[in-house]
């Protein structure tokens, strides 16, 4: 078991302070530690515990920078409850600029690794530690993702549980709508992955907001804007749950969507033909795959009427990879 001395309740006990540090988990070959960074902003007044993390995938940085910015902006005197922020959960992957940590002999996607395993590979150990010590003790959770090295994603907020007929689902939906983006991913529970962080929040009955903001393909022009979106999103959710005074601003034109991942059959240059949020008809060519001589060797076709929410923005794509996140209005 990793770091038996760590005590989350002790970490957040003192009121009216900010603190930061690392939880050390295991020694690495070079003598330094596998660790989890944290920033705690404990309000003067009591209130809920909001857990905010980024970096389940190590190449998705906008949420990390948004967390750093939000925690700098917050004054403990004005805060009710406790913000526990983990700016880079999969720290090994983040330092390596990769989605997954390469120190595992058999690669593990951390957002497929829940509930984790204290006796497994390091990614599963970090996941188990995080679930047991952080998630279990939170009342609300925001877990940031983004386009990373290869995808473009329209800024969006997903929520879980997706079933809004339950009290928990309705609350999660309310918080996602408060976050401050137009696109709301309303069926993330149906995503075809096992072991995502939502399995832990659902297990413990915690409303979860999962924003997707930023990526390398827009960083030259939009990094600062996207970091601000993340920072403001945290503040907005904190207002919505009463941790801060004030109301989150209303977002005009919000659209609730279901999202499906569309994979490409062939590899080559990926040539998107539709822009994000552009309406598409069933059968429309969403992208073409071309070879080194410019010949078309494949297409990705719209499976039904809908819209592009995200796409593989890297110039080339391998066969079987995600070409699109394709949405339909719910």
């Amino acid at each position: 078991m990793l770091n038996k001395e760590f005590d989350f309740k002790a970490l957040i006990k003192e009121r009216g302070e900010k603190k930061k540090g690392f939880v050390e988990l295991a020694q690495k070959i070079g003598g330094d530690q596998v660790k989890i960074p944290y920033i705690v902003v404990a309000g003067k007044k009591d209130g809920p515990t909001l857990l905010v993390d980024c970096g389940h995938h190590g190449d998705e940085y906008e949420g990390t920078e948004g967390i750093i910015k939000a925690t700098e902006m917050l004054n403990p005197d004005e805060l009710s409850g406790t913000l526990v922020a983990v700016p880079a959960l999969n720290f090994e992957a983040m330092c390596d600029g990769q989605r997954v940590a390469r120190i595992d002999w058999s690669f593990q996607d951390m957002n497929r690794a829940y509930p984790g395993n204290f006796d497994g590979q390091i990614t599963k150990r970090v996941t188990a530690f995080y679930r047991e010590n952080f998630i279990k003790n939170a009342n609300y959770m925001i877990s940031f993702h983004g386009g990373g090295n290869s995808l473009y994603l329209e800024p969006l907020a997903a929520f879980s549980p997706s079933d809004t007929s339950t009290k928990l689902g309705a609350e999660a939906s309310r918080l996602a709508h408060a976050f401050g983006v137009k696109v709301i991913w309303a069926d993330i529970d149906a995503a075809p992955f096992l072991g995502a962080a939502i399995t832990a929040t659902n297990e413990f009955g915690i409303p979860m907001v999962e924003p997707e903001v930023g990526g390398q393909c827009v960083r030259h022009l939009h990094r600062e804007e996207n970091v601000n979106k993340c920072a403001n999103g945290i503040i907005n959710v904190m207002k919505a749950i009463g941790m801060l005074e004030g109301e989150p601003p209303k977002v005009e034109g919000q659209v609730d969507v279901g999202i499906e991942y569309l994979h490409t059959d062939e590899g080559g240059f990926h040539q998107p033909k539709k822009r994000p949020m552009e309406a598409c008809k069933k059968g429309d060519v969403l992208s073409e795959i071309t070879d080194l001589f410019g010949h078309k060797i494949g297409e990705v076709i719209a499976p039904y009427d809908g819209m592009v929410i995200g796409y593989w923005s890297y110039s080339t794509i391998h066969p079987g990879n995600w070409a699109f996140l394709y949405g339909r209005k719910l």
Partner: protein
Amino acid sequence: MFKTDFNLDEIKKQRGKKHEGFIELCSKVDGSKIRMPYIIICGEQDGPTFLVDCCIHGDEYEGAEGIIKATRSLSPKDIKGTLVTVPVVNLEAFADGQRVAKMDWTLQDMNRCFPGNPEGLITQRIAYFYTENFIKKADVELSFHGGGNFLYLEPLCAARPPRPELFEYNKSLAKAFGVQVIWIGLPSFAGTTLTATTEAGIPLLVAELGGQGVRHEHREELVDRCANGIKNVMKKMGMLDGEVKERDDYVEVKLKYVHTDEGGFHHMLKKPLEAFKKGDVVAEVTDLFGDKVGEVRAPMDGVLVGYWSYSTINPGNWSFLMGYTD
């Protein structure tokens, strides 16, 4: 040494024709081949041989797409001479989305390997093969690079003559390419393509366009600029009919790479082509808690030409490329 019967001279004899295909160089572990793709347009009329390549660094795609676009839009009827293109020189790195090919036991940057070594590592062998079979048979070479996975670069074109008396001609070709920034002066590294073009005695153009940091909004525009740049140089060389419109805003600079001492989040404080003074803080590096851990200062007066556009940077890496004049 590769066993291949590829012979550019034989292909060039077949005038008025487009040729495309792969040169098979040697076997890989899975039984497939290490290959080099080519697209060659032999004009109906005689004229110079213009060699255009991309992806000596595997993650720099805009030039490859520009080559494909240009060659598809050109007919052998239009061309005097021969346009020889290799859209991807470092195919192993390209297919892997990486700057360098990971199959070499000790990683080799192909643009530090020229003129190559026929008995060395695979990247060195390819550099040698390319030098002997392509570069030495060309009259002018245009080699595309770009920002790749991590850098933003203001579109630029370098003029790299094999000897000083060809500088003005070489620069006129670089200006014809069509971008604002003209990089004069030598590269900072040994073993670039310049080593081979100098040996071959031919003018070299190095164009830098694109990168993942601008691909969502500007990929198509940059691919077009690469394709048009090829045609512009061909016009200047007399291979295509038509006049090249010169710009009135060229910026001629030498370039210097400035490295960061510390790693962390990399924040660029200047915009592309913004001027700064010696000692100005051009970038800051912050840690996971937002605290500043380093600064990168301008070593001399200059302008920002490119920068590390990825969110994080490792210590010792390139923070920015600055332009300066003597």
